[in-house]
């Protein structure tokens, strides 16, 4: 009987709306952000399908050259007599036209979607990991002496140093000097963009460190790494999530700029950036080669930015009473 009462009380103590539900309802009110979110979900499915259909089961072949079929505008049906039927594009139509080598742009865009998104997500994962780790160290162990200075000073001065570099120039230098590879690009973008996250996390940690639940956790002799990563990081994650969403957008833009300058992903692999860079020479004869990848980048980056803004609003405590 006693136990039952306890359970009932616990049930009564539960908030009417959970934290996640509350944030979600704020997020849904922002129509642009909600629309972008759905768009991005569809994009993920699209890019997964693209990865499967261009790499593993080759249904759309992005690398097949058909020289007699070059510069066909979008939605041209496949009618060639010269090319054997097994080399015909999927569904016998060039949805988005062909490029200067007669490759199917739709297949290349499909392949590029997964590459561009991978670059964005891997780069941001690296930068979030570094930022949370270093920011957490600086915030939690801030006062700890390390020789003649504190750990906080060392890490934050390092952040200052990194902020002084002209980022794009630094990325360009490293990417140009290293052998060209997609992994180098992801790593370099990740390694040069963690400073904002580190600052946010440090600021949050400085405030969280003094809160009761952290003191309570410490009094129970819970190992420090557990306090930091299991107890404190989830409470400091909101600004990180926002900056990570916008970081994906920035990383996709940086990758496309690098590809545009010729340092990005190397042919024959396609990304949106290098489809655009190859197509720009033919902008008067074949404008779709420039406009299709250009607008794809624009829409995807815009969706990430709007989504990030929606998250920022949802996590903003000042806006709480609006619901």
């Amino acid at each position: 009987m006693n136990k039952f009462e306890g359970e009932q009380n616990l049930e009564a103590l539960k908030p009417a709306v959970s934290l996640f539900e509350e944030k979600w309802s704020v997020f849904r009110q922002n129509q642009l952000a909600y629309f972008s979110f759905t768009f991005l979900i569809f994009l993920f499915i699209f890019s997964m399908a693209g990865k499967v259909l261009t790499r593993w089961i080759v249904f759309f072949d992005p690398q097949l050259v058909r020289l007699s079929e070059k510069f066909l505008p979008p939605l041209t049906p496949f009618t060639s007599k010269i090319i054997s039927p097994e080399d015909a594009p999927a569904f016998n139509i060039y949805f988005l036209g062909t490029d200067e080598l007669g490759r199917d742009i739709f297949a290349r865009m499909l392949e590029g979607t997964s590459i561009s998104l991978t670059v964005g997500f891997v780069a941001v994962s690296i930068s979030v990991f570094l930022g949370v780790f270093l920011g957490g160290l600086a915030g939690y162990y801030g006062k700890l002496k390390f020789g003649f200075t504190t750990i906080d000073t060392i890490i934050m001065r390092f952040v200052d140093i990194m902020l002084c570099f002209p980022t794009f120039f630094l990325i360009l230098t490293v990417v140009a000097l290293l052998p060209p590879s997609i992994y180098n690009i992801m790593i370099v973008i990740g390694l040069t963009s963690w400073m904002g996250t580190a600052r946010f996390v440090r600021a949050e940690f400085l405030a969280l460190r003094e809160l009761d639940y952290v003191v309570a956790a410490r009094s129970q002799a819970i190992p420090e790494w557990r306090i930091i990563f299991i107890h404190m990081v989830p409470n400091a994650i909101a600004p990180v999530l926002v900056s990570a969403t916008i970081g994906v957008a920035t990383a996709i833009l940086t990758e496309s700029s690098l590809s545009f300058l010729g340092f990005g992903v190397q042919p024959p692999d396609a990304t949106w950036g290098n489809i655009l860079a190859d197509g720009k020479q033919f902008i008067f004869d074949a404008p779709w080669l420039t406009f299709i990848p250009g607008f794809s980048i624009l829409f995807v980056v815009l969706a990430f930015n709007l989504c990030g803004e929606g998250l920022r609003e949802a996590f903003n405590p000042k806006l709480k009473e609006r619901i």
Partner: protein
Amino acid sequence: MTKFIFKSIGQRIILLFFISIISHAIVHLAPGEPSLVDPSNPRMKAEDIERIRAAFHLDEPLYIQYIFWMRDLFTAKLKSFKDNQPVLKKIWDRFLNSLPLFILGTLITWFLAFPVGIQAALHRGSAFDKLGTFLSYALISIPGFFLSYICIIFMVKVFNVPVIGMRTFGLENASLILRSMDRVWHWTLPAFMSAIAGVAILSRYVRSQMLEIINQDFIRTARAKGLPENTVIYKHGLRNALLPFITMFGLIIPSLIGGSVIFETIFAWPGMGRLGFEAILARDFPVILTLNFISAVLVLIGTFVSDILYAIADPRIKF
């Protein structure tokens, strides 16, 4: 105050030292030496490569190379690997080309961002505000090079004016008006392109800053005194909203080199960004390193000046 100035100068010199060490290490540790740029050239024999490496001190240990770089930089004897020209003079020439673009771009940014941001804040939730929000996101999201191409086609087709390069070749003997008009046309697009991202970001900041200020008590007091609305907004409000933008002054300087690489490449503008791009392609280490160093110096000077301006502008800050 004097103590603060000396302390922050000292801190910045130490930072600069570490920046120079890190950038030197990154550039020299990455694979690919200047002697390897042209591996297919049959006239490059092993002993030639050795001679080149010795001439550039590339066969010395890293810290000796660093000392050589620093010594040459501060005695202004640093020579480019590529054409043996003094690096500082090369950079200075290009800097003079980049400067008008940078100034023009900054002016456009500030003169567009502030009115747009203030209007958006004053009419919060209006169609103008929503359109401004959406446009600024669109402008941040559009790849700069893509927008540049659209604008180039537009300008050339509609106005029929030259936009690539710094001036039209063969106009040297034309009249002054024709020449200056030509210059202006060449400036317009690159300056606008480099300003666009800044306008989008800054106008958002101005908006949120203004929104915070106009809800404060002193604005209500000013209105209650019966001051005209313009005085309230532009004298009392704007002055207080301006404070955070002093700090942004220092942080826009890296774009002088970094942000301009793409636009200067597209518009064939012989500026600093393009110099850096060419130096990277040629593995011209002294130029890359010195550009990095100079931009770090500019950032540090910029943040220093903004710190001091902040202290002067905001009487609440004490040292």
